[in-house]
């Protein structure tokens, strides 16, 4: 198993990836996922979703989860 990571919009462009897969070993929270792929602090306004539902950075993440990071939404 692994953790699927997705990035959207300006964050996708900044990170340079649409999606990534990482090994779940040593990953406890969405914050850990972020730090596994970035050496920058997460932007204060960054939004997080786990398995397509909003979550916060300290929410627990398990093997097989999909974790998404994106900027404030601008639809409508």
């Amino acid at each position: 198993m692994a953790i699927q990571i997705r990035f959207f919009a300006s964050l996708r462009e900044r990170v340079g990836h649409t999606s990534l897969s990482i090994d779940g070993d040593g990953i406890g929270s969405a914050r850990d996922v972020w730090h596994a792929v970035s050496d920058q602090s997460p932007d204060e306004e960054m939004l997080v979703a786990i398995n397509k539902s909003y979550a916060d950075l300290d929410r627990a993440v398990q093997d097989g989860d999909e974790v998404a990071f994106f900027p404030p939404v601008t639809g409508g």
Partner: protein
Amino acid sequence: MRVEIRESAFDPWIEVSEFRRTQLAIGKAGASAVFVGTMRDFNEGDDVTSMVLEHYPGMTERQLEDMTREAIAAHQLEDALVIHRVGNIVPGDDIVLVAAFSAHRKAAFDACRAMMETLKSTAPFWKKETLTSGERWVEKNTAG
């Protein structure tokens, strides 16, 4: 209820008309409150020539469905319809349709507006505008 993401242009007025005709019982929904958002050719003082609307497939639908289901329950609507465009968009294209159908006008007005505000603040869509001087991401939606 119906929630749809569209990858090509749609006519919101035909959609509302067809939805009412095919989905609503005649004589029950006395009030239809509809909001349509359309791409402008200006934003924050700059000319905008086109736009790309990105979304999070799966999550976007789920957010819109949850929001619509909650609005129907909270406002005791007869029904509701939400359509949102994604992909390449030009000024004058319709981006979003939110329609609330109820027996009385207060519920329809309240629900339509509440759905639009929820959509604007929570549905995972992102706009990248093309200006004459280049491209930029829209950074944040303003409160309605």
